[in-house]
């Protein structure tokens, strides 16, 4: 793992360690990762974050984040 700069945040997103350049919210992270927030859900450290709380939920260093959507399946 690389040494993080002062205001960067190291987190795990969908199984990969990612370095966020600045402190951010779930809302901003979804905007970065998904073309549309429709059909998307987010869990942080195993807890589902309700959509209404995305803008106010800060991503903290070390967070384990899952961003999921629909995939083909039986």
């Amino acid at each position, binding site marked *: 793992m690389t040494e993080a700069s002062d205001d960067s945040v190291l987190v795990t997103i969908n199984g990969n360690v990612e370095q966020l350049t600045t402190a951010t919210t779930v809302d901003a992270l979804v905007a970065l990762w998904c073309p549309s927030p429709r059909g998307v859900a987010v869990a942080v450290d195993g807890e589902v974050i309700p959509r209404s709380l995305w803008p106010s939920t800060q991503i903290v260093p070390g967070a384990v984040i899952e961003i999921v959507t629909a995939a083909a*399946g039986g």
Partner: protein
Amino acid sequence: MSAPSTAGDPFVIGGVTLDSRLIMGTGGMTSHDALRDALVASETAMATVAVRRVDPSTRHSLVDLLDGLGVRILPNTAGCFTAADAVLTARLAREAFATDWVKLEVIGDDRTLLPDPVELIDAADQLVADGFTVLPYCGDDPIVAKRLEQVGCAAVMPLGSPIGSGLGIRNPHNIELIVEQAGVPVVLDAGIGTASDACLALELGCDAVLVASAVTRAVDPELMATAMRHAVVAGRSARRAGRITRRFHAEASSSFEGLATGPGVSTAQRAETAGEPVDPSSR
């Protein structure tokens, strides 16, 4: 649009009326367009989706496709081996798709993909308590089906045979036992290989079938979707019509009475050969 195939014979799960007894899976298709064509041909009212990590390279949205077709989304917990994983996946699905319906799948091993009944009942119990409408994929064990109904599942979905095997309904008697005792809809899930399997499920008394691979991996998925649509309508009609009793020997549907005879054979002799009562005066 024409009247739904369920007109006059509604199919209801958890208080919601579905206009088709064919529930479609979306996995295994080669392209987004082929999936759309098959869904349209099936005239399904509900289709399953899996919940997976976002792939930024994916161009097509499955949610948009299903919404556009007016097909209800039934998220599944495919790939989960524990109750804990299945509960988390169901909660993610509820947040993602704004539905509290879930096809609950908790499998016991990745070779057979058979359900783990202990984890399944535990997960069902937790999700029902959390307000979910739970449709559990289960084995064809009537006792497990009964337990799932007792914890509050809105339907039970026994397998005909292992997922994707196309082996049809291996234990029709167990399916009939599940149907006979069930107070909730029974949906035959998994194992269907072709239209006659789906038809048989409805003839046995299942309320619906869930079909994925049999359509999506067919040589012509759109045509197989059409076949499945007809199969569930035929099977349901046959069930409601009431089949005849099975007989060991033949029973003619044409009476022997009034049959013209050739020289040397009397009507009485012919009737006697056929086992029919003979008027002694005609000998």
